[in-house]
């Protein structure tokens, strides 16, 4: 879970370019993206995931839509109390409203997940494009570097880096965790991008563009990139889910979000010791976390299936 390589290692989609689809109907050629969209629209998993993602996004943007309670207004008098009006999940050991805290927990989780994925995506895109397109010593160097980064199990590296970045910082740790996940999570997307570029580069139409005198930049962005981007986006979608899970794991271990940050990971960690007295404060953030991760993984899965008909 905290390891994207494991999720995508052998399943990572190859470049979908040039693969014949729906054999025997040459009548109406469709673009790959258009074709993928048609497949997506028919996929139940895609719609379930999309609805979930929209709900989670709403929750992160406007938590007050879902609850009117203040997640930070805790009253020890309510300690471990059961469900009440406006607090369907009851209260935790500090008397905080579990439902409100869980709803508000979406925001930091998503901010960290999204920004870390963007950082990782940009690094992965640049490294993958450069290694794949220019090849030679640059490719060798970058690929070895990827090997080295992958030589350190992800969470171990994340613990060290997050520890380091948050040291002495008095904030709630959002920046440190985001940087940690972003700086360590780009390897798979770089690898996928690299092999997609290499495959796309070998296609005849790119050779044709080269012979017609297109500049390297034009070849790259006009011809190679559009045909390599599908698998890359799939990896990023999956990475988003994994980053959210990793954030909670780091927060759980105490090197993630802290201070006044409200996060599912910290909630699970804080309520953990009291789980035998009252399970709700552990269970509900867990459920929200799992469903969020599930939504993004499902989304990635559905998109991959749409782009990669080979595995039907």
């Amino acid at each position, binding site marked *: *879970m905290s390891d994207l390589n*494991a999720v995508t290692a*052998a399943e990572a989609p190859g470049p979908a370019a040039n693969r014949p689809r729906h054999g025997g109907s040459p009548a109406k050629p469709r673009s790959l993206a258009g074709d993928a969209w048609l497949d997506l629209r028919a996929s139940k998993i895609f719609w379930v995931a999309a609805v979930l993602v929209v709900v989670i996004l709403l929750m992160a943007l406007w938590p007050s839509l879902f609850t009117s309670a203040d997640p930070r207004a805790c009253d020890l008098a309510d300690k471990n109390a059961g469900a009440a009006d406006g607090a369907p999940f009851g209260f935790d050991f500090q008397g905080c409203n579990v439902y409100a805290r869980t709803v508000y927990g979406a925001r930091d989780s998503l901010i960290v997940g999204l920004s870390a994925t963007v950082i990782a995506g940009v690094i992965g895109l640049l490294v993958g494009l450069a290694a794949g397109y220019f090849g030679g010593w640059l490719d060798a160097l970058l690929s070895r570097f990827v090997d*080295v980064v992958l*030589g*350190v199990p992800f969470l171990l590296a994340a613990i060290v880096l997050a520890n380091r970045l948050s040291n002495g910082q008095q904030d709630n740790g959002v920046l440190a965790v985001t940087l940690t996940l972003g700086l360590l999570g780009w390897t798979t997307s770089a690898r996928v991008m690299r092999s997609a570029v290499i495959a796309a580069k070998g296609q005849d139409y790119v050779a044709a563009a080269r012979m017609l005198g297109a500049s390297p930049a034009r070849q790259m962005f006009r011809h190679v990139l559009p045909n390599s981007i599908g698998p890359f986006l799939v990896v990023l979608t999956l990475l988003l889910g994994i980053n959210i899970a990793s954030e909670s794991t780091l927060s759980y271990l105490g090197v993630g979000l802290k201070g006044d940050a409200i996060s599912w990971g910290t909630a699970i960690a804080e309520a953990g010791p009291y*789980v*035998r007295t009252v399970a709700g404060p552990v269970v509900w953030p867990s459920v929200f976390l799992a469903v969020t991760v*599930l939504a993004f993984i499902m989304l990635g899965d559905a998109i991959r299936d749409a782009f990669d008909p080979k595995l039907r």
Partner: protein
Amino acid sequence: MFRYIVRRLLQMVLTFFGATFLVYALMFANQDDPYQALAGERPLSESQRAALDAKFHFDDPFLVQYWHYVKGLLTGDLGMSLTQRPISAMLADAWPITIKLALLSVLIAAVIAISAGVLSGVRRGGVFDNVTLVVTLIVLALPIVVLAPLAQVIFGVQLGWFPVTVTRDAGLWDLLLPALVLGTLVIATELRVTRSSVAENMRADYVRTARAKGLTGKRVIGVHVLRNSLIPVITLIGVDIGALMSGAIVTEGVFNIPGVGYNLFRGIRTEDGPLVVGFVSVLVIVFLVINLIVDLLYAALDPRIRYE
């Protein structure tokens, strides 16, 4: 084969230095106050500072510091934790139970993943296949921080099937629940890779040949498809060891298993820098060695690699 081994060994040496350097640099490069990096918020006495200095040589240039650190790693001298215990002794104490736990979970995961993966790969699109796809999706989405406490609550506390916590000399039965939790971390990916690998190989030409040879369906799958399909799975199991190590930190923390992960968990929480650096470095080495072994296994399974 010989050249392959030599090349892999050289690669491992390279990755070893790269990875340890990475860990060391992440921790100490450009630190204003490396002592505080090691000790976090906790105040340090003069004697503690002196001890840290003796170990980490903070006055030397960065590369020299790194060299001392690697030398320590290779000679088994990991220095002292902030609690004044030799880290190598702590490791030696913690290893046995962690190895037991890891082996058990790798085994459970591999057996379930490979058998279920073969079944759904052979009958792709069948009921079993669709059910496993949904189940793996859900399992994939369960972070270990969710899974471990929930499993403990449900199977340990509520149902009482398994012990809630585990002691140092726990038997296999005591470790079963944590091993299952840990195994689910990797089971879904291993299953999916097995499945797609089997499904792909089922369509390979050599399978048609095997059937044309009048072999039974069992033999076609068990002998011809399986060996080819296992090649990517074996590689994945190597990568998965890394995920298991990460997962072990949380799992051992939740179940109070006094292993490597638990020590690391406590080290992180108590901001015991030397302990964290030492343990992480050793785990990185273990990870690299396991991956080397997996690579050799891979060569044994695939003659195309062996003779390249």
